[in-house]
């Protein structure tokens, strides 16, 4: 069975290709770096990363590095390295530090 990632020849995306480029943001660089550093250390593999990306329920709604971030989180939780709760907590703390509402 193919998933939402299996786009070769998919009919839903027959429109023109958007050739605009956004500047890579720091958080995207960081997401890329954390994901590949974990791979480099043998903590997870590229294939696990793909499986985690491809099984995201909201695959099509997420941006590219949002999918990476969600997949990395999923794998870290699965492997018992981090818990969802501690990530929730720390994310809330950082949000307060940044002074965002």
């Amino acid at each position, binding site marked *: 069975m193919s998933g939402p990632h299996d786009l070769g020849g998919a009919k839903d995306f027959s429109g023109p290709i958007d050739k*605009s480029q956004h500047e890579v943001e720091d958080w995207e660089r960081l997401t890329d*770096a954390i994901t590949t550093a974990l791979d480099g250390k043998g903590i997870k593999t590229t294939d696990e990363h793909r499986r985690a990306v491809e099984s995201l329920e909201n695959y099509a709604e997420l941006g590219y590095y949002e999918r990476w971030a969600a997949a990395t989180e999923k794998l870290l939780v699965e492997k018992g390295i981090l818990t969802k709760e501690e990530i929730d907590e720390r994310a809330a703390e950082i949000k307060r530090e940044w002074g965002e509402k």
Partner: protein
Amino acid sequence: MSENGHDHPHPGTGRTATPSTLRVRAMEKLLVEKGVLTEAEIQDRISYMDSRSPANGAKLVAKAWTDEAFKNRLLEDTKSATFELGMDASGPVEFIVVENTPEVHNLIVCTLCSCYPRAILGRPPDWYKSFEYRSRAVKEPRAVMREFGYEPPENVEVRVHDSTADIRYMVLPMRPEGTRGMGEEGLAELVSRDSLVGVSVPEAPSHFNA
């Protein structure tokens, strides 16, 4: 934020508090605190990717255009050929360089994701990751290339290569007519990222044609 409002390679502080940015920062802090990763390891990865760019691919192509023996090595063993030019594309991923000829034009896509020769060319462009490119490149490659302003002559066979996590492709375009006498550096400037993916081809500079 850049002070002058001009484009800058490192804009912003990355401090937009979207759920993803917050969770990534949280993961970074927790992973470092727990000793899973160090800040240095994370920074190394950022520098590694920032140091990769299409200029690497252009250098390889220009060298291949001017040195037949190098071209053969590039086609046979891409990784060791990149080492010769001081690039490090080591790692578990295989690289295959596919050569455009008067008979065959090559186009690269990754229908399943965004697999790309990152260790050589850096992060892929946004359009390469778009659902439209991934869907259409295998179905109507000529229509896709037309959108980028190029279409191979009708008698040329178009070969589309679907990348995987383990095998990454790069196109070796044909050296444009009218570039005889140009040195490697000048030739490299003709080689765009898009031509390394195959949605376009290098063209001779206008003053060479004149």
